[in-house]
C-alpha cells in the first residue's frame, strides 16, 4: 500500500522538480532581458 503512495508521490515530486528548474531558468532569462533593455 505504501508503494502505491510512494509511486504517486514520486511522480509528482519529479514533475514539480522539473517545473522548479524551468521557473529558475525563466527568472534567469528575465534578468538577462532586463539587462539588455538597460543597455539599449
Amino acid at each position, binding site marked *: *500500500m505504501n*508503494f*502505491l503512495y*510512494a*509511486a*504517486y508521490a*514520486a*511522480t509528482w515530486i*519529479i*514533475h514539480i522538480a*522539473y*517545473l522548479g528548474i*524551468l521557473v529558475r*531558468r*525563466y527568472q534567469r*532569462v528575465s534578468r*538577462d*532581458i532586463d539587462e*539588455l533593455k538597460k*543597455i539599449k
Partner: protein
Amino acid sequence: MKKLFPIFGLLTAVLLSFALYEALVVAPTEQTMGNVQRIFYYHVPSAWTAFLLFFINFVCSIQYLVRRNPAADKVANWTVILIAIATCIAAFVVRPLAEGMEPSSIATTGIIIAGLYFLIKKYFSVERTDALAVVSAEVGVVFCTVVLVTGPLWARPVWGIWWTWDVRLTSTLVLWLIYISYLMLRRFSTSGQTPVLAAALAVFGALDVPLVYFSIWIFRTQHPQPVIGGGGSIDPKMLQVLLINWLAFLAFAALVCWSRYRLEILQRKVEETQALQALEEPGGSR
C-alpha cells in the same frame, strides 16, 4: 495565444485531479495484486507520453537534417507517405495480428505518424523544429524517469524484485540513457552546429531501439524469466480509467512542453541579441 495558457493550465489541473480520483477510488481493485496495481494508471500513461515525446524528437531531428537539402526533403516526404500507406494496408492484410492489436489502431498509428510529420513541417520553421527537438527530449526524459521510478515501485511488492532485464524495462532504460546522452551532448557541445550533431545522435538512437528490443527478446527466449506486467486483455472499466489518466498526462505534457518551448525561444532570442551587442560594441569586451 498567451491568454489561453492559464485557461489550459486550469483545465489540466482539473483533468489531473479527476484522473487521480478515478485511479484511486473509482477503478475496481485488481484481484491478484490489490491496490498496488493502481500504480499502473500513472506508470503506463507516463510511458506512452514519454514514447510519444521521443518520437516527436525523432521526427524533428529527421526534419532538421533533411530540410536543408531539397532533394533529401522530397525523399523524406515520400517515405513518410509510403509508411502511412503501408501501415494502413498491413493493418488489414497481415494476419494474424499480434495479441491485443486491432487493425484500426495500427492504421491510426500510421496516419498519426504521417500527420505529426507534416504538421511539424508546416508550423515550425527549421530553427524552431530544433527548439521543439530540445523541448521534447527534455520533457520526454522527465516522463521516462517517472516510468523508471514507478516501475520498480510496482514490481517490488507484486513480483518481489525491484528490476529485471525484460524487453520492455530494458528498452525503456536504454531509451532513457540515449536521451540523457543526447541532452549532455546538447549541453556540453561548443560547436556552432550542435543541432546537427544532436539530430544525428537522435537518428542513431532511433535505429538502436528496435535492435535493443530484438536483442533482449532473443535473450529472454534463451533465458526465460517471469514476465512482468504481462499483456492480455484488460477490464473495460480499468481501460477507461487508464485512458482518462493518459488524457490528463498528455494535457500536462503539452502544458510543460509549451512552457519549455517559450523559454527556449526566449533564450535563443536573448543569446542572439547578446551576440549582436558584443559585435556592435566599439571597443569590444575582450
